């Protein structure tokens, strides 16, 4: 830890939120003469994206370095009045829950910008592309940094427009309807969430998350809490996404460009679960306790449903799309996160937060790799890729194939990699849920979720077998693939390396993350003895 005084960290956080927004506006302007490089204005603006997101990453890293792990509660706090008549305040701060997500978002955006710099987006108009990516970054960082309900809603909505355009403008086949479905689902969810937020704010008399969390639901009647959790929960469940509200996700992921998929899976989905931990859990504990068993049931249903969907997609001759498969696997992973939250125990919630971050790293990496695969082979259709014999990436591109297999086994939760701990802790939490929750029900959930991990392992290994192994049969549909594909290039190492390294690090040294989240979780959860 680097000791920095509060004013410095406060400004670091403000800068991290504001810089991408300014960068987005600046991306639309022509480059000043001093910043013009070779390659024309298109390269200039893509470089601008790398510079800004890199600077933001450094800011968040500095913030993480200066974070005092021994102090529970919020640090780097800013609290100024903004719209007194609505009671909205500009209240920013980080704690152990939001800090990992801030760093993760900044990291993924930086890697995406880097990737876009080397491989400019296929839809043209890099100016608008960079502006939207930076606006998206600003919105996500703000979502994780704000501590005011109305501001949270504003930040939550900010990401919609850029994500819509990233899919609709730079996406692949079927992008139009997919982008619409994404936007309409999420907006419908978030306006319902707004009603819940307003209900809480009006009944409690404040929109301040910290004050509300410290009250632990005091001053809110049981009915208010029920209605609020229901409304907020629906909004966040759409974003997470929770089965059965997930149906926008596979289409959006399949149609989105690589950068869009990575940010959608790695950053946007986290906003839903983060909101549950940050808002629903501490602010309306009564309502949450009522709905937790249902949340758990939906969560495990999602785990099983997603695994079965993936198994159906991976079958030979099913015409399954690799991106769609990873999207469904996201639904399953987010099911574990939701299960962890539904246990209402520190163990489960810590597991949920861990799984959240791990999913961002691993699924981000998977989407990057699938994007690169599409770039090399022109398709993500499993049958066209693998055919009957398998795509044999191990043989054709050893390093690429190895990394893909690494990401796949990380995703299925192999011990020693990041995916393991979150799922384990979530199930551990379900084994011993919070007082007042039905233990038999949670034991069932834990058992079903355990079965889900087996199914996950099954389809992930099938993916590895079909894509990485194999021996191309002559006359197979894969014959169109050249015998030798280009292996990992330097820029690809630069983009994927950090994610792979962090996956390994978080798997081997989970305390790195858990030490950060645990004090904050205990601080937020009511009635939990140290």
């Amino acid at each position, binding site marked *: 830890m680097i000791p920095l005084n509060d004013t410095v960290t406060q400004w670091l956080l403000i800068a991290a939120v504001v810089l991408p927004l300014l960068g987005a506006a600046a991306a639309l302007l022509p480059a000043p003469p001093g910043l013009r490089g070779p390659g024309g204005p298109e390269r200039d603006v893509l470089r601008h994206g790398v510079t800004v997101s890199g600077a933001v990453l450094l800011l968040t890293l500095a913030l993480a370095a200066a974070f005092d792990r021994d102090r529970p509660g919020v640090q780097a706090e800013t609290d100024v009045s903004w*719209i007194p008549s609505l009671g909205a305040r500009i209240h920013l701060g980080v704690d152990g829950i939001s800090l990992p997500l801030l760093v993760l978002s900044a990291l993924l955006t930086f890697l995406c910008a880097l990737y876009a710099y080397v491989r400019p987006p296929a839809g043209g108009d890099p100016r608008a592309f960079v502006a939207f990516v930076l606006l998206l970054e600003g919105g996500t960082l703000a979502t994780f940094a704000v501590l005011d309900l109305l501001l949270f809603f504003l930040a939550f909505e900010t990401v919609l*427009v850029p994500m819509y355009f990233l899919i609709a403008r730079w996406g692949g086949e079927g992008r139009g309807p997919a982008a619409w479905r994404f936007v309409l689902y999420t907006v419908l969810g978030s306006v319902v969430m707004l009603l819940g937020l307003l209900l809480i704010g009006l009944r409690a008399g404040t929109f301040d998350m910290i004050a509300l969390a410290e009250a632990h639901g005091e001053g809110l009647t049981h009915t208010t809490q029920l209605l609020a959790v229901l409304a907020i929960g629906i909004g966040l469940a759409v974003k997470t996404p929770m089965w059965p509200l997930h149906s926008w996700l596979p289409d959006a992921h399949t149609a989105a460009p690589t950068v869009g998929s990575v940010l959608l899976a790695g950053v946007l989905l986290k906003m839903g679960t983060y909101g549950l931990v940050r808002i629903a859990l501490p602010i309306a504990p009564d309502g949450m306790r009522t709905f937790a068993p249902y949340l758990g049931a939906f969560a495990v249903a999602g785990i099983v449903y997603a695994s079965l969907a993936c198994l159906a997609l991976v079958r030979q001759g099913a015409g399954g799309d690799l991106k769609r498969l990873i999207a469904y696997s996201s639904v399953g992973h987010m099911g574990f996160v939701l299960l962890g939250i539904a246990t209402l125990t520190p163990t489960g919630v810590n597991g949920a937060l861990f799984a959240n971050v791990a999913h961002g790293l691993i699924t981000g990496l998977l989407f990057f790799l699938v994007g690169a695969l599409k770039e090399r082979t022109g398709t993500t259709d499993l049958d066209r890729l693998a055919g009957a014999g398998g795509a044999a990436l191990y043989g054709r591109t050893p390093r690429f194939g190895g990394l893909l297999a690494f990401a796949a086994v990380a995703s299925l939760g192999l011990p020693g990699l990041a995916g393991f701990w979150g799922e384990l802790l979530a199930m551990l939490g379900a084994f011993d849920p919070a007082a007042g929750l039905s233990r038999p029900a949670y034991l069932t959930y834990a058992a079903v979720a355990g079965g889900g991990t087996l199914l996950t392992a099954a389809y992930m290994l099938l993916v590895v077998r079909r894509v990485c192994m194999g021996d191309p049969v002559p006359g197979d549909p894969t014959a169109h693939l050249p015998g030798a594909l280009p292996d990992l290039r330097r820029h690809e190492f630069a983009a994927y390396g950090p994610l792979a390294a962090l996956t390994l690090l978080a798997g081997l040294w989970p305390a790195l993350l858990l030490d950060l989240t645990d004090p904050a979780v205990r601080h937020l959860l009511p009635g939990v003895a140290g």
Partner: protein
Amino acid sequence: MTTLADRLTQSVDWAVIAPPVITAVTAVVVLVADLFLPAARKRLLGPIALAGLALAALALVPLRHGDRVTFCLADGPGACSYAADRFAVLVQLLVLGGALLTALLSLQETDPRSGDSALPGGEYWFLLLSSVTGAALLPASRDLATLIIALEVTTLPAYALVALRKGGDGPEAALKFFLTSVAATAVTLLGVSFVYAASGSLHLGEIASGLSAADPRLATLAEAGVALTLVGFAFKTAAVPFHFWVPETYLGAPLPVAAYLSVVGKTAGLAGLVVLTARGFPDHGHLWGPVLAALAGLTMTVGNAAALRATEDAPGGAVRLLAWSSVGQAGYLLVPIAAGAYVGADEAMGTLLAYALMYAAANLGAFAVVAYAGRRSPGQRLADYRGLWARQPLAALALGFFLLCLAGLPPGVIGLFAKVAVLRTAVDAGLGVLAVVMAVNVAVALYYYLRWTALLFRPAPPAAAAEAPADGPGDAARPGRSLAGAIGLAAAAALAFSGAPQLILGFTTDAFL
């Protein structure tokens, strides 16, 4: 000696009534000047009208404290016909500001140099200013007679304005507008007579006390009067089911007139409605509260559902979309008025004002960009906006911003918070169902706003790109300075509101009564 004169005449404080009077005088000046100016000088009429509107807006400055009244009865201290309270002054500011922007939009249409298609300057400016006079008078009226006259002065010139363009659908649209409007006025007058019969006064303050003290046998009469009176105002705000005139009228009317009706006409009607409900019938909240809530829900649903059906290739699609969207927005604007029955008039008035200011800036801005883009593609199809970002980046950014403000999505921050404020009053008033209906409507409306925004950033179809030079540079390159100015003003207002929402949301907690 003097007592008789005192009783028969009312004191007139000219400074208080200056804003409507200045507009009225300017209207007459323009009409007369049109007769005497040589044809070459007729383009000066526009600047004269603009100057008059600016002067009227300046006349609001001494009234900003909102404590001046005039036309008071000598014997009843509480009975004044005209009150420039804060609410009235702020609505007048909105009306005059909106009229200024409309005037900027109209400068080119009325320029005699633009050939046969030009609108006749003298008549146009006279009618516009007359209508503005009525709209400025409306929020300050404190008796039913003045209120009705103001309402008629606002709408009567509007029929003529709609029909002003030669050929096209204008006259037919105006006739429909006129007939439905007259019917609504007749119903209102009937309602007024009932209310007068039950309460014995035309002054709103005295009606409020008179109705509650009225003979119980007259209760039905009073309630019928209240309901009928509100019908006329519902018509002016294009509330469903009194909305049928809107799309055709907007399509048939010259574009600036459509912009004017959608913002100034609507705001005036709503201000009248809120003055009427909050000051005249505060004790009948149980009657008009649910009715207005139902109207609000219906209006936004019908407006948004119709706007969803807009197709890309239909001629006039852009204007039609704005017309239906303004019906939907009228629904949101009705929500705080309905909530006023339960939460108190101050919050209702403030929220209405905040939302109306946001709506005025964003909607007039959108109309300005549509007028600007319409010079190149007069067909006004939505498809014509494809690729605007590549041709005119600033106009595209401005239109995108206005549409997102109307939709309530960031970066249109003020649109979002204005909607939050409206939803908040609804939740506060316990109108849970209406809040949910509005929430769903906001999500649905996003579809068409965002679709239009998305069109701006699509690459232009190759056909349009090829025909662009054939347009002739003369037409597209003609300086649209007044239009650009209007866009700039609206964008500046919307940006300022977005950066500092407190500027207008502050009204939601102010006291107006």
